[in-house]
């Protein structure tokens, strides 16, 4: 992996092979299937990238919504008392 990274520095005819791209795209496809709990069917690279973009947008939207919800909750919550409990529950997940 690191060799790939050092080989494709900015500009100057860095030749990225189709195999590398295929490999990376299929990794993305697998990741998407894993994160969304969906089966990964055969899809074209363009389709995988489109799904990736859509997924990123939906994650951004979720963060926005959750931020709004949290800002409302901050009114009524004492975060200090919640802090330790939240960390503990996250660590045991």
């Amino acid at each position, binding site marked *: 992996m690191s060799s790939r990274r050092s080989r494709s520095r900015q500009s100057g005819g860095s030749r990225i092979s189709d195999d590398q791209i295929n490999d990376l795209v299929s990794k993305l496809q697998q990741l998407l299937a894993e994160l969304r709990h969906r089966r990964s069917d055969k899809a074209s690279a363009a389709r995988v990238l489109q799904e990736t973009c859509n997924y990123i947008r939906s994650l951004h939207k979720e963060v926005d919504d*959750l931020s709004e919800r949290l800002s409302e909750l901050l009114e009524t919550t004492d975060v200090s008392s919640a802090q330790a409990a939240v*960390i503990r529950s996250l660590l045991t997940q």
Partner: protein
Amino acid sequence: MNPHPSSCSNGRSIRTRFARRFLRALKKIGSKGSSSRPSPRDISWRCRRVKIAADASMASAVGPRRVWSRTMLNMLRSRSHACLHASRLGNSRRPGADRHAVGKRKRLVLKRKLPNRLGLNQVNQLRRLVPGGEAMDLDILLDETAHYIKCLATQVKVMRSIVDYCSA
């Protein structure tokens, strides 16, 4: 220092690092509120602060070892400096958590040699969505995207558990 942060245990440590930082930031934001009824302006200010804190906490939990997190850290740093500077000059404008700022400012789409089947449109979209994506070579972009998505998903998971906990 971990050379390649793709293992499960590392994912968990990013989750913990993010959670700690984010909760710390939330505490600060919460303490700034007035005890009396907040105005709509206060509420929207707080919402923006929470969003910025979420992004900043994640970028800082990952650290500078990824292009996307580096980009985000620089963006947040320069924006907070600009805000400080602006407020000193009497400008009351606050930084919005404009995640897509990098993409919006740089309208230029760098043309690169691509395999046609990838779909130029999708790659360009992706470049605008991933922080720092505009300047990345394609293989780096795809690699960074995978990491970025994992971290975003973690961010959402943690934020959701905090919401659930506080709503109980």
